[in-house]
């Protein structure tokens, strides 16, 4: 290892180029992710299913592709939303859409209010009223992160395993480190 360090210091331009290449790879991946976010108008365009509340349609570990450019949401669409104030995205189906009477303010102009939505998981008996924030009975269009348009089964299971068993992260890093050291020799 010390020999590698010496060779790196001897040709600083080459090692800097390698660092730059590495940074380029990282930033390309990041920019791809962000441009996907912009195209689909959603803060998180690809999500992994964590719970079993949409079985048998979506199992834990399925990867979902979201789209958020539609003006309105229809009943029957599967949406991902964040509970107000919490950061847990929930994937459920819209079962009710109520059009509200537009509110008239003092100047006499009406502001069109977005329809109120109620969601429910396919595998749940009750709808999501209990999951919403205190005092909130319906969702607005702005609470939604996106609407599910397509999915790939079982690909995201690695993410779930890594987040639920953090010792696996250290184990994987350890194995990778061991491999790198062993490879040199």
């Amino acid at each position: 290892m010390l020999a590698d360090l010496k060779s790196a210091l001897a040709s600083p331009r080459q090692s800097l180029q390698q660092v730059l290449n590495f940074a380029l790879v990282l930033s390309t991946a990041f920019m791809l992710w962000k441009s996907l976010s912009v195209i689909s108008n959603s803060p998180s365009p690809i999500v992994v299913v964590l719970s079993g509340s949409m079985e048998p349609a979506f199992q834990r570990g399925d990867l979902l592709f979201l789209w958020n450019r539609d003006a309105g949401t229809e009943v029957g669409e599967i949406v991902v939303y964040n509970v107000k104030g919490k950061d847990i995205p929930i994937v459920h189906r819209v079962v009710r859409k109520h059009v509200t009477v537009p509110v008239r303010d003092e100047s006499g102009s009406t502001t069109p209010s977005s329809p109120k939505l109620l969601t429910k998981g396919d595998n749940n008996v009750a709808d999501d009223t209990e999951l919403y924030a205190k005092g909130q009975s319906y969702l607005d269009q702005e609470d939604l992160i996106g609407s599910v348009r397509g999915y790939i089964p079982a690909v995201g299971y690695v993410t779930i395993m890594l987040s639920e068993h953090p010792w696996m992260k250290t184990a994987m890093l350890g194995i990778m480190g061991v491999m790198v050291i062993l490879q040199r020799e």
Partner: protein
Amino acid sequence: MHSSLNRLQTTFGFFSTCAFTLAGIIAVLSLIPIPTPTSQPSAVIKPREVQVVKGRPHYYSAKREEYAHIRFDLDADLSPLFTWNTKQLFVYVTANYPAQKGNDQSESVIWDSIIPATATPWSWQSLKSTYFPDKKSLRVSKNKNKNKRGVESTTTALSKPGKINLKNQKPKYQITDPSGIMAQRQNVTLQVSWNVQPWVGALVWDNGYFGGRVGSWKNGRTGRSKSFDLPALKGSKPEAVKDPEGPRTPKAAEGKPITDI
């Protein structure tokens, strides 16, 4: 250069490329109509018995709202939607009614059902039930024939996946409105809709982008009922009609001058 780790990496990379390409091809193929579909899905729905009752959202809430209980007849044939890439079909019946002013409709699901596709002999479900059967199902089905289907469907009277025959079906959900008023609403229609969930690829709804391409409704049997009105509250006097828009701020008093100067 040709160490075992390298070989493993190359193999895994090649495998994942092939898998994703295959998934992409499957996803695209199930959206384009080749071969052209021979039959179209059809559905006829009729409301049977409609009641509006007073109820609470849940046991501890103080407010009382009106709930509509709509029983219906449904005759549907959705078997053309079951292709080789269909994992399950989600069928749902909505009651649509217009808001007080304007043409926008409020929609609420009153009944839904998941129809899974029949498990093929080499699928995960069939293999699991043959080689790792649940001890419970072994004991119960000793006298019956071994059922190849691993999952029970929730729709009653199924002879083939996709054929639905319901008579005077009790709705799964009783519906209300944020204003709390459901009695004597007019121009209510029932609509049957479907959502195909594939094994891999894009989800298709009947009123979505690919709905018309994958399975447009047959002429005359589009699954929409004639419009009907909701009755008055059960047990209430007929002249007690509530203000349907809910509480409004009263308009400020206007004074007109008696003489025009």
